[in-house]
């Protein structure tokens, strides 16, 4: 069973000619089939955790370990991490001029699966996945994220999640900027992947709204660069009622 283990992770970022520590010792274990929600106020380091796990060059790991099934994730390049089974659905997916969605998806699937998917079954696979996400077929011929609305970008991220079938999926504020309909469609996509039992999900969010659609097994409150409290789904209800105030008082990073 695939397991992502994060131990005492420390991460810094360069900003305004100064080194700032964003993650100050994160401990977390995500197993295949589990869903963990990470909730926290703005600036608490949630997204830094997501991008650090994916290997974004902006972040420097200064301490701790991350392993996936015992393999050292921090030693891997960005593409190696993805091929090892890590997937990051981004809060702000990037426009890639000149590359069509269909070409992108196929190139990515080829890289992840280690061989090019058979064309006939692949076309069907993509078409069905797009239909489930209420995406128009013409979408496949557009350039990656170019001119996409906020909702289209997020659906495109979840489309990739469904097609690439990672071991560990990190969803970075996938719910932000979505209206209720889009949120429902995107959540259904995430749930389809979760229901396979094949993926461990790390759901990063600022709001409890998405948790009405995606039920987490574990909820962690993130504050000032580390996990401040962990609990079950009931912890989300507490946050819904009380907000993050209890976690940020005296915290300078809110």
């Amino acid at each position, binding site marked *: 069973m695939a397991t992502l283990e994060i131990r005492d992770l420390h991460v810094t970022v360069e900003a305004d000619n100064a080194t700032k520590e964003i993650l100050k010792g994160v401990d977390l274990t995500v197993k295949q089939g589990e869903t963990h929600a990470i909730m926290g106020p703005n600036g608490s380091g949630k997204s830094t955790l997501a991008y650090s796990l*994916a*290997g*974004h*060059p902006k972040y420097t790991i200064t301490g701790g370990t991350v392993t996936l099934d015992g393999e050292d994730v921090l030693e891997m*390049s*960005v*593409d190696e*991490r*993805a*091929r090892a089974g890590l*997937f*990051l659905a*981004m809060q702000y*997916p*990037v*426009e*890639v*001029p*000149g*590359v*069509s969605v269909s*070409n*992108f998806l196929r*190139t*990515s699937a080829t*890289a*992840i699966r280690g061989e090019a998917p058979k064309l006939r079954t692949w076309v069907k696979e993509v078409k069905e996945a797009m239909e489930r996400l209420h995406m128009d077929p013409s979408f496949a011929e557009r*350039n*990656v994220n*170019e001119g996409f609305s906020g909702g289209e970008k997020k659906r495109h991220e979840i489309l*990739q999640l469904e097609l*690439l079938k990672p071991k560990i999926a990190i969803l970075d504020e996938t719910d932000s900027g979505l209206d209720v309909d889009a949120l429902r469609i995107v959540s259904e996509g995430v749930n389809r992947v979760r229901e396979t039992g094949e993926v461990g999900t790390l759901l990063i969010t600022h709001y409890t709204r998405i948790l009405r659609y995606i039920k987490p097994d574990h909820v962690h409150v993130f504050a000032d660069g580390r996990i401040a409290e962990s609990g079950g789904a009931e912890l989300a209800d507490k946050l819904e009622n009380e907000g993050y105030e209890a976690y940020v008082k005296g915290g300078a990073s809110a």
Partner: protein
Amino acid sequence: MAEAQNIPVGSTTAGSIAVAAESTVATRMSAPPSFDVADFPVPHGREEEWRFTPLERLRGLHDGTAVATGDGVKVDVQAPQGVTVEAVGRDDARLGRAGTPVDRVAAQAYSAFEQASVVTVPKDTVLTEPIRVTVHGQGGTAFGHQVIELGAFAEAVVVIDHTGDAVLAANVDYLLGDGAKLTVVSVQDWDDKAVHVAQHNALVGRDASFKSVVVTFGGDVVRLHPRVAYAGTGGEAELYGLYFTDSGQHQEHRLLVDHNTPHCKSNVAYKGALQGESAHAVWIGDVLIEAAAEGTDTYEMNRNLVLTDGARVDSVPNLEIETGEIVGAGHASATGRFDDEQLFYLMARGIPEYEARRLVVRGFFAELVQQIGVADIEERLLAKIEEELEASVA
């Protein structure tokens, strides 16, 4: 492509649409067209038509100090049956009919060449194989003049392939008879030190179709000036260009479509990728719709993809309209960059770095590559793109 927010530092995308009596296109040139080099002052670099060009790297083509050396270029023409290939003197009436030199280097080339090459496809002759002209640089300096003439209703594909090392200034004339169809692919695949400055003049006959594909990869400085005018109504011109500008290279494409005749069409699409320190691409797209040219339909587009820091693009579309009685006129220019965030996004989907760059560049050029229509050139172009990208990763 993100039109406005994604322009790298050190690039300009300027443009204008002038609807005025005063011709901005004409006033851009510091002297009227002439076959005589003496009619042009030596440029100092601040003139509108020279301001982007590194004069100090032209090896004297612009100031009269460049002299033909005899070992400049070796020109070889392979033509299918039915085509005439002649070497002629400067008194031949077919020379200069398609257009007049518009700057000092073109006039220098006209004043200095010894023999011109004239390739003629007789009327009603439809070629099934391309005419292939190879221009191979031998390390010296040369001045050239090439004429390609198609009689009425003739059809031909011409591939002009520049390789090797040379300092070359040339004029190339395309004369299309009524109803003729000509596709010309000019490949600039020079070695690193080559300097190539040329004016291409197309005169498109009544109901004739002209397609120009300019592919520029090599050279230290390449400055091309493709120009089109129409000799009768119903003419069509498609001008496509692809360039891959590397570290230290200057590649400049300056186009003019002169809609001087009613009911003609033009479509211009140039795309370039740049990588490396001091890579400099310049694209000037001038379209002039003269008062008489009612029913004109024109569109011009330039796109640039900047792959690394340190490259510079200057892209200037200009559309000048002297009559409102037209079908359509438009232009677009955009410069986008392939940046670290795009690379991260693609790599986060398992795609290795080299593959990510390849994907972006091939996708960017795909629609234009398909326009070439000459299979071996298309393949060579794709191979060349791979080669350039591999060099950048290494």
